[in-house]
């Protein structure tokens, strides 16, 4: 095996499979350069192992525990009810903001879109035709109701009732 491959393997010696490890062992027996790198690596490993045996500790462990617990209790007090806690989920928040954005865009587009024109062609299906007719009827009804309010609606308005009576008179004369 080439020295380059072995040197890469030396740094991962303890993660290698038994087979790969034995091939590294066989190589370093024969190659002085690789043996030197291996020894250096092993020395570093001993230093790191020695260093790891010392566990860094807090200067005032109980003080830190107290600090943590104070922060936790403060969190608990601030914690909202379940109705709002589900908002803690980042994905859900993102989905909701996206949905709100889409709704706002749709709302704005509604006002900005041009009036719908239905071109009646030979291929127009009945749904479109039906909708068009319905819209036309509705519009006619609306115009009609604006021109002459119903007698019931005029019951409480004297002027309105008089207008209707005059109209009826005019029609009868015609």
């Amino acid at each position: 095996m080439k020295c380059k491959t072995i040197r890469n393997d030396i740094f991962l010696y303890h993660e290698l499979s038994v087979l790969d490890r034995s091939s590294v062992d066989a190589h370093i027996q024969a190659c002085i350069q690789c043996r030197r790198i291996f020894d250096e690596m092993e020395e570093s490993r001993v230093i790191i192992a020695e260093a790891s045996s010392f566990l860094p500790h807090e200067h005032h462990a109980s003080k830190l525990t107290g600090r943590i617990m104070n922060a936790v209790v403060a969190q608990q007090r601030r914690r909202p009810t379940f109705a709002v806690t589900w908002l803690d989920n980042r994905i859900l928040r993102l989905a909701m903001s996206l949905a709100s954005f889409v709704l706002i865009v749709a709302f704005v587009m509604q006002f900005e879109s041009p009036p719908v024109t239905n071109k009646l062609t030979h291929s127009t299906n009945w749904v479109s035709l039906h909708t068009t007719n319905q819209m036309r009827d509705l519009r006619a009804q609306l115009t009609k109701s604006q021109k002459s309010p119903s007698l019931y609606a005029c019951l409480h308005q004297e002027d309105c009732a008089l207008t209707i009576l005059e109209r009826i008179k005019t029609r009868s004369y015609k």
Partner: protein
Amino acid sequence: MPTSLDLIHSATRGDTQAFRALVEQNQRMVYAVAFRFVRNAEDAEDITQEVFIRVWRNLHSYRPEQGQLSTWLYRITTNCCLDFERSLPRNAGKGFRDLNTIQQWRTQDDADRHVDSEEFNSWVIMAAQTLPPKQRMVFILRDMEGLTPEEVGGAIGMSAGQIKSNLFHARQKISTVLKIVFQIK
């Protein structure tokens, strides 16, 4: 004595005393990882606090069948450490990237003196500061905390290949630094 799982169940129901016991059990481990990562006691304490706040907030999401409590804690600690590193202004805490600076750490007088494990620890932590954050975390978890490659992968969210690649570069650089510091022949 209640187990960690009992404490978690009680804490999930809002028992702060159970949570305190859980903190006392695991605080040192979390602090050690944080300290090795940031090499600063105050920052390590802040990270430890943040870790346990996140643990408290996410107690309900802990599933014992998905892994040990320690693995879950390592994962939260890793995230907090990396978040901390990201929050630092650019070039802050990166004064040890230069090998010439490292050479000045240890004078000849120091080299002749006996070094205990605490001092070894501080040298290795200093050497680890030369590594990029993720490489440093992989090195700390694997070589200093003694986690298996699978546990490291679970904690840091990396594949086996990525772990190996990061370990290779980390060990290569640490080895170079230690060679300079301890004048390994």
